[in-house]
């Protein structure tokens, strides 16, 4: 009994600890202090809270404050968690338009598959996959001991197909968001160096809001590669926001 009580208390504490108040940031945003709001939201995000509302509000604060590169980055972070909702997509486009107005040529995400997965992802998809795959195998386990009727067999086929499609989608997501590191340039016109130091020669520049592949890291420098360019160089980690999902 005591163990059960302890478990309930532990779960409650863990559950409550996931709650973080973002009302201070909201108040600052409503009083038009967008930079102050972004700062408040950032403080919470730095604690490791992964919440789409927090990320979205942080992105919107940056958008309203005119910091479009950071807005793009946080909208991507929002979409990685919850997929592309209407308000997120609308504001992402606005952020890109803002960058264009500032003379920053940017074409948005440079990977079709990445873009597809991010736009059609929903946090419930992995959960549904888990449930379906368990149902599928549970039926198969039962089938080892009980005779399976023809109707159930066709259900098994349908389930297998759905599970397979979801598995492909989730595998692609795992590959792109967990095994491949991408980033968004969050500073204006970042110089890409030959080596991991500012002393190295500049080989090319990347624009604010651009998406890059991260191929290596050395101290405070990332080695990046722009798809299509196939030239690698080093940039300071301050200028890049990493797009990596902690959750499916």
């Amino acid at each position, binding site marked *: 009994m005591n163990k059960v009580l302890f478990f309930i208390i532990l779960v409650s504490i863990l559950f409550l600890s*996931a*709650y*973080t*108040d*973002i*009302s201070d940031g*909201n108040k600052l*945003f409503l*009083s*038009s*202090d*967008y*930079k102050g*709001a972004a700062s408040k939201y950032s403080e*919470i995000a730095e604690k490791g*809270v*992964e*919440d*789409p*509302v927090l990320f*979205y*509000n942080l992105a*919107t*604060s940056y*958008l*309203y*404050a*005119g910091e*479009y590169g950071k807005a793009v980055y946080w909208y991507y972070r929002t979409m990685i*968690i*919850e997929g592309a909702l*209407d*308000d997120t997509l*609308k*504001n992402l486009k*606005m*952020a890109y*338009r*803002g960058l264009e*107005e*500032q003379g920053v040529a940017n074409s948005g995400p440079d990977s079709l598959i990445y873009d597809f997965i991010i736009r059609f992802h929903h*946090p*419930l998809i*992995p*959960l549904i*996959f*888990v449930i379906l*795959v*368990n*149902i599928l*195998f549970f039926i198969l*386990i039962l089938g*080892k001991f009980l005779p399976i009727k023809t109707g159930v067999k066709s259900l098994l086929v349908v389930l297998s197909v759905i599970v397979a499609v979801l598995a492909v989608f*989730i595998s692609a997501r*795992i590959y792109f968001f*967990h095994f491949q590191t991408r980033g968004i340039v969050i500073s204006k016109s970042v110089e890409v160096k030959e080596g991991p130091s500012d002393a190295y020669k500049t080989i090319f520049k990347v624009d604010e809001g651009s998406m890059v592949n991260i191929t290596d890291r050395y101290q405070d420098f990332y080695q990046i590669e722009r798809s299509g360019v196939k030239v690698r160089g080093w940039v300071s980690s301050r200028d890049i926001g990493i797009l990596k*999902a*902690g*959750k*499916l």
Partner: protein
Amino acid sequence: MLRKTGNFLFLVCFLAGISVYADDVTVEATINADEIGLNDTLVYTLSITCGFNAEPSQIKFPDFLGFRKLSQSQSSSMNIVIGGGQTFSKVKNYDIQLSPNKTGVIEIKPATVVIKGKVYQTRPLKVTVLPASKSSSAQKQRQMKNPFRSPFDIDELNLEPKISDDDIILQAVTDKKSVFVGEEIIFSVYLYSAVQIYDIEQFTLPKFENAWTEDIYSPQKFTSEQKRIGQRVYNVYLLKRKAIFLNKAGIYEIEPTSIVLNVVSGFSQKRISRQTQNIKIDVKPLPEKDMPADFPPFNVGDYRISYSLFPERQPMDKPFTLKISVEGTGNINAFSIPKLKDNPELRFYDPVTNSDIQTENRVYKGRKTFEYLVFAKRTGRIQIPSFEISYFRPDTASFEKVLVSGLFIDATEPESQGSIVKRSSETDGADRPASIRFVNVAGKGFSGIGINVFFILSLICPGIYFLIILRDNIKSLVLFLGFDSETARSRRRLRKYLNKMSLDMKKKNVADFSGNLYAAISELIFIRFGINIRGMTRDNLKQALAEKNAGDNLADEIVGLLDTCEMIKYANSAVSESEIESLFKRFRMVMRECGE
């Protein structure tokens, strides 16, 4: 037999007695006194006496006009009298405590009781209610009138002191009897006690209908002050203090306050009830002369009003705050100021109000602030429109006005706003970015599962299924992977040789048959006895088999078969098909004897 008959007769007589007296019903109403004071409590008792098996189906009490019902209680008892005839009856008593509302002679109408379809009525009762001051003398008179003194009446023997009306006094007072509509009246309830109070059982305040009330003093624990009134010293308790604001002109009557309390009387407690009289307040309307248009009816009191605007200069995307502060005595919570409306240059948000009520010195006063958030719609110097705040001062019977004017804001270009937002706000177009999501709590809702959790969850059932499949095919798998013992491999080879021997028999390939038979015998000996016959002589083999307790017959048969195989191989002797089959059968026999 006689004893049984006697018992039966006794029962018949007993039941007959009951049946005789069951219909004997008495309904009587009594009061504890014919004369009472206005502050006294009258106890009305309705007593119903009826047979054991009778029950009143309906009891209708009188309306008790001129009285207020304080409480009602019920008790029942049984009377059994045996001797000269059985009396077996049930008595039900209903006690109702009444408090008189007026003085004079009051008639209490009859009560009606229906028992077994028959209606019984009590006689009407009359009681004389004297003014409160005379009640104590009436009480004394009642005591004098009582010529009987029971030797068991402890009260009459004066073992307990009597609680007189003067010992406990409940008083409700107001600081004013004549007020304007909305003016503050302080209503207080005091309890004067010359005896020790045990507890307060019930304390009922008036309802104050059509009035705005605010609590000033509601003690959790009563404290008292000592006060001398005439020759007596009282402990005076302030039970309640309220600020009352009447919102309708005319005569307002505050209903009585009542209390039921237990006091210490000698060695026991005594339940005492007291009630105050009605208080009449003359409520005058506010003078119509000089009354501002749309005057808020509750802005009545003695107030000081101040206002401020801050900051004077800042970017237009940040709010300016117009703060109006009202301080003084009156119904501060209900004080209102005019609502500021948006204009082409300014946008006003509904004010945030804060009230700080102070009830120090048991007076209702405080401060109320109104904070308007003001946004400039353009840059530059903009004047806040003037407006008036008015209130009525009851002490001077005049309307006071405070003009809020001469306030300017200086709005500069917004600092922290992106061009997209700026442009969209200027054009007021639909292309404005979506705002933040108004959720106060982050971490709410389902935002995905961790990758490790995902893998664990997605492998639960597939893992179980895999284990079941593995269990079913473990032997095949072990054989397939070769993770088996030398004996198992030998047994597998034996099976292979047997298959080959069957094929050789069909093909009549005698040489191959004998070779396979030899190999099969070697494997069988290894499987069964763990003996490797390679390089062994026949004698050594026989000795080794004997050591393994193989039995002489089996050893001879094995050696015989081996010899036959060698003979076929080396001597190339012709062997017929039937002989091959015979050899095969002999080998199967050996196998069977070896348990394979």
